[in-house]
C-alpha cells in the first residue's frame, strides 16, 4: 500500500495567449491528467511535479491545475467561471495553496489587471513575467524590484518558450511566500458592513474575496457553502443595497488607474513602441479579403490531403498487424465461445479504436500548429460572418472540414470553439459530412446502380454521383446547423471579442502534448464505450435464438475442424447462420419498418451491424450473399446485381433502392466511435441520443422520399 503523498496545490492563472499552456507543459511534463471540472464540460488539466531545493536537495511535491484563460475574475462564460470559483471558494477541491500568475510582459496593463485581482484575494502568489524576449525587442525596460514592491508579490521574468527563468521560478515556489498587507485596489471602504458580515460567515482571506462573493451572491449554487449561509449572504447584500455592477465598473476603472501608475513608475520605454512589423506584414496577406481565403483554402487542402492519404499508410499497417494478431490469438486459444468473444468481440473493438490514432495524430498536428502560431484566430476572423449565418462559429470550419476524413478527431477538435451553443451545434452536424468510412459503401452502391458512362463526353457519371453525395452531406450539415440555431438555447451571452495574437513559431513540445492529450482522451474515455458496443454487436451477430443457429454453427465448426476448404457450401452455411442470429432476427423485425424505403431484411441486417462502423456494410453484404471474405467488391456487386425482388420480378437493387440506401448511409448516425466521443465531449448521453435520433429521422425521411419518387 502506498502512502498518499501530500501535494502543494498550485493554480496557474493568466490571460489567454499569455503562454500559460506552454508554462504548464514545461512545469509538469507528460505528468498530466485531463478531466472535466465537476458539473461542467470545461477541460481541467492537472499535472504533478517534484521540485528539489537547490540548496538542500530536499524535494517538494506540487499539483498544478491549469485554470482556463480569462481577463478578469468576473466570469462571462462557463470557462471563465472556473477561475472565479476555484479562487474565491475556499471549500473548492481545487482551491490553491499557491497561485502562479502568468503575465504577458508586452501587454503589462491587461495582464496586471487580472493579476492584481488575484493578489488582492490574498492567496500567496508569484508573478511569472513572460515573453521577456519580446519585451526587450520593444525597447521596454521593466524594473522588477519596483514592480515587486508595488504588487507585494515576487516577480520572476521568464521566457517560457526558451525555458529561461524557469529554475528561479521553481525555487521561488519553495519559499515561504507571504501575502502583501496592502490592497492594490482599496476594497475595504466600498461596503464595509457587507464585507464584515460575509467574513463572519465564511473563512475568507480578504475583503476583496468578500466583494467577489457579494457580487455573485445570487449565483453561488456550486459553492461549498451551507445553504443557510448563502441565504444570509444574499440578505446582507440586499439589506445594505450592495450594487454589484456599479462597484464592478468602479473597480475596473480604479484598478486600471492604479496599474497605470504602477507601470509608469516601474518601466522605462526607451524607444517608441512598435508592434512587431512582421506580424503586420504577414497579416496583409493572410487576412486579405482575397488572398486570405486562398491561403486558408490551401492550408485546408493540405490538411485534408494529409489526413485522407497520409493516414492511410499507418492505418493499413495497423489493420494488417491487428488482423494477423487476432488470427494468432484465435489459433492459440482453445476453441469455443471465449475464443470467439475475445477475437471477434474484444480484439475487434480494440482494433477499431487503434485504427483512429493516425488520423487523430495528424489532424492535431495541424491544429496545434495553427493554434500555436496564432493563425487560428485569423481563421476565426475570416470565417465568422459566413459561419454565423448557419448558427456556427468561425472556428467551426476546421471540425467540419476534418469531418470529411473522420468525425472522431473532428469532434475532438471542437474544444477551440469558445461558445457552448456554437460548439454543440458544430458537434451535432459534423457527422453529416461524408467521412472516409462511407466511401466503401458509396463505391459499392454506385458501381451497382450508376452506369459507367461519360456525361457530355468529359464527366464520369459515377464520379459525379460520388461528388454529389459529398455535397449533399455538406449541405445537410449546414442546413441542420441553421435549423438547430433556433432550438438550441444559449447558456450564456456569447462574446466574439477576442485577441488576435502576434505570430510566433510553434513550440514543438506543445504540439506533442496536444496530440498525446487527444489520443489519451480517445483511448481511455471513448474507448471503453466502443469496446462495450463492439461486444454487444458481436453477441448479436454470432449468437442466435433457438436450435437452428446452434445446428448451423456446429456444422460450420465441424467443417473447419475437418479442414474443408472455403467452398461455396461453407459460405452458404455462414449466410444461413447470420440469418439465424439475433442480428438476422432483427433484420427480419426491421423489415416492415424499412420496407417503405425499399429495403429488405438482408439490408436490415447490414444496418444493424453497420453500427460498429459504416464500412461493415460491405462485409455484412458479402456474408449475406455468401461471397466469402470481405473486400471483393466486384463479386459482391455481381451477386447483388443478380438479386431478384420476388415482388416485382425485376432486380432488387434498382436505382431507387440504391439512392435510398446511399442517402440513408449519408445521413444516419451509424458509428459507435462518434457517439462515444460525443458522449465524452458533451459530458453525458443526452446529446449523443438527440444526435442519433435526429440523424435517424433525417435518414429515414430522405430515403423514403427518394425511394417513393424514383421507384
Amino acid at each position, binding site marked *: 500500500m502506498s502512502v498518499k503523498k501530500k501535494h502543494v496545490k498550485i493554480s496557474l492563472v493568466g490571460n489567454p495567449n499569455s503562454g500559460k499552456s506552454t508554462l504548464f507543459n514545461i512545469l509538469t511534463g507528460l505528468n498530466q491528467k485531463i478531466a472535466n471540472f465537476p458539473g461542467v464540460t470545461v477541460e481541467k488539466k492537472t499535472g504533478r511535479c517534484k521540485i528539489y531545493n537547490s540548496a538542500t536537495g530536499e524535494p517538494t511535491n506540487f499539483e498544478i491545475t491549469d485554470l482556463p484563460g480569462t481577463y478578469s475574475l468576473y466570469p*462571462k462564460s462557463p470557462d471563465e467561471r472556473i477561475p472565479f470559483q476555484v479562487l474565491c471558494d475556499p471549500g473548492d477541491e481545487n482551491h490553491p495553496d499557491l497561485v502562479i500568475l502568468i503575465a504577458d510582459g508586452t501587454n503589462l496593463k491587461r495582464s496586471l489587471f487580472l493579476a492584481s485581482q488575484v493578489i488582492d484575494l490574498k492567496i500567496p502568489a508569484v508573478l511569472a513575467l513572460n515573453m521577456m524576449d519580446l519585451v526587450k525587442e520593444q525597447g521596454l525596460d521593466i524594473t522588477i524590484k519596483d514592480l515587486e514592491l508595488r504588487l507585494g508579490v515576487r516577480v520572476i521574468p521568464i521566457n517560457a518558450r526558451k525555458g529561461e527563468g524557469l529554475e528561479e521560478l521553481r525555487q521561488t515556489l519553495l519559499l515561504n511566500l507571504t501575502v502583501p498587507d496592502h490592497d492594490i485596489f482599496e476594497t475595504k471602504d466600498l461596503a464595509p458592513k457587507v464585507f464584515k458580515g460575509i467574513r463572519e460567515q465564511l473563512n475568507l482571506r480578504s475583503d476583496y474575496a468578500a466583494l467577489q462573493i457579494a457580487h455573485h451572491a445570487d449565483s453561488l449554487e456550486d459553492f461549498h457553502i451551507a445553504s443557510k449561509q448563502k441565504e444570509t449572504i444574499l440578505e446582507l447584500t440586499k439589506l445594505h443595497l450592495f450594487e454589484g455592477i456599479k462597484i464592478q465598473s468602479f473597480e475596473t476603472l480604479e484598478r486600471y488607474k492604479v496599474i497605470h501608475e504602477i507601470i509608469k513608475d516601474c518601466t522605462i520605454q526607451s524607444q517608441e513602441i512598435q508592434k512587431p512589423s512582421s506580424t503586420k506584414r504577414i497579416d496583409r496577406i493572410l487576412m486579405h479579403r482575397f488572398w486570405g481565403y486562398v491561403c486558408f483554402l490551401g492550408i485546408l487542402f493540405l490538411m485534408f490531403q494529409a489526413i485522407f492519404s497520409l493516414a492511410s499508410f499507418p492505418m493499413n499497417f495497423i489493420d494488417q498487424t491487428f488482423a494477423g494478431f487476432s488470427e494468432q490469438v484465435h489459433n492459440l486459444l482453445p476453441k469455443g465461445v471465449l475464443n470467439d468473444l475475445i477475437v471477434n468481440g474484444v480484439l475487434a473493438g480494440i482494433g477499431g479504436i487503434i485504427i483512429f490514432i493516425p488520423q487523430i495524430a495528424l489532424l492535431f498536428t495541424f491544429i496545434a500548429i495553427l493554434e500555436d502560431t496564432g493563425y487560428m484566430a485569423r481563421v476565426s476572423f475570416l470565417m*465568422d460572418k459566413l459561419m454565423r449565418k448557419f448558427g456556427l462559429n468561425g472556428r467551426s470550419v476546421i471540425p467540419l472540414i476534418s469531418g470529411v476524413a473522420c468525425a472522431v478527431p473532428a469532434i475532438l477538435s471542437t474544444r477551440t470553439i469558445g461558445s457552448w451553443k456554437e460548439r454543440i451545434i458544430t458537434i451535432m452536424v459534423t457527422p453529416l459530412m461524408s467521412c472516409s468510412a462511407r466511401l466503401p459503401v458509396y463505391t459499392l452502391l454506385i458501381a451497382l446502380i450508376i452506369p459507367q458512362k461519360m456525361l457530355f463526353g468529359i464527366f464520369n457519371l459515377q464520379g459525379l454521383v460520388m461528388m454529389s453525395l459529398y455535397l449533399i452531406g455538406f449541405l445537410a450539415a449546414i442546413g441542420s446547423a441553421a435549423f438547430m440555431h433556433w432550438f438550441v438555447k444559449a447558456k450564456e451571452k456569447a462574446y466574439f471579442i477576442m485577441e488576435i495574437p502576434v505570430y510566433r513559431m510553434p513550440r514543438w513540445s506543445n504540439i506533442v502534448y496536444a496530440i498525446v492529450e487527444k489520443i489519451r482522451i480517445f483511448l481511455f474515455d471513448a474507448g471503453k464505450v466502443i469496446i462495450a458496443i463492439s461486444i454487444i454487436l458481436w453477441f448479436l451477430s454470432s449468437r442466435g435464438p433457438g436450435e437452428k443457429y446452434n445446428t448451423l454453427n456446429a456444422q460450420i465448426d465441424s467443417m473447419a475442424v475437418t479442414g474443408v476448404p472455403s467452398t461455396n457450401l461453407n459460405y452458404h452455411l455462414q449466410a444461413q447462420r447470420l440469418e439465424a442470429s439475433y442480428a438476422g432476427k432483427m433484420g427480419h423485425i426491421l423489415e416492415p419498418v424499412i420496407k417503405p424505403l425499399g429495403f429488405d431484411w438482408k439490408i436490415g441486417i447490414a444496418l444493424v451491424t453497420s453500427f460498429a462502423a459504416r464500412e461493415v456494410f460491405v462485409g455484412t453484404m458479402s456474408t449475406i450473399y455468401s461471397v466469402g471474405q470481405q473486400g471483393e467488391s466486384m463479386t459482391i456487386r455481381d451477386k447483388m446485381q443478380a438479386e431478384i425482388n420476388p415482388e416485382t420480378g425485376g432486380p432488387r437493387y434498382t436505382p431507387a433502392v440504391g439512392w435510398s440506401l446511399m442517402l440513408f448511409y449519408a445521413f444516419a448516425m451509424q458509428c459507435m466511435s462518434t457517439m462515444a466521443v460525443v458522449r465524452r465531449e458533451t459530458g453525458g448521453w443526452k446529446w449523443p441520443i438527440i444526435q442519433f435520433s435526429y440523424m435517424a429521422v433525417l435518414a429515414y425521411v430522405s430515403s423514403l422520399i427518394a425511394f417513393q419518387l424514383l421507384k
Partner: protein
Amino acid sequence: MKNKTIRLSDLRKGESCVIESFTDEQMKQKLLEMGCLPGEVITVDRFAPLGCPMAISVSGSVLSIRTDEADSVIVRILSE
C-alpha cells in the same frame, strides 16, 4: 479637430478614434477588462470580407470584435 461622436462600427479602415462611452452594460464590463478604457485610442486595422468582424488596435494589442458589439462603443473620431 472634429468633436462628433459616432459608433465604433461606423469607422472606416485606417481611421482612429478615442473611446468616449459605452451603451451596453455587459459589453462595457467585457471591453473595460480587455483594456478598452475611455480615453484610449483605437485604430481600425481592417474589416473581415463580409464587413464583420472588425480588427482594431488598442493599447498595443489587436482585437477582433463583431460590428454589433462595436455598435455599443461610442467614440470621438480623430482627424488625420
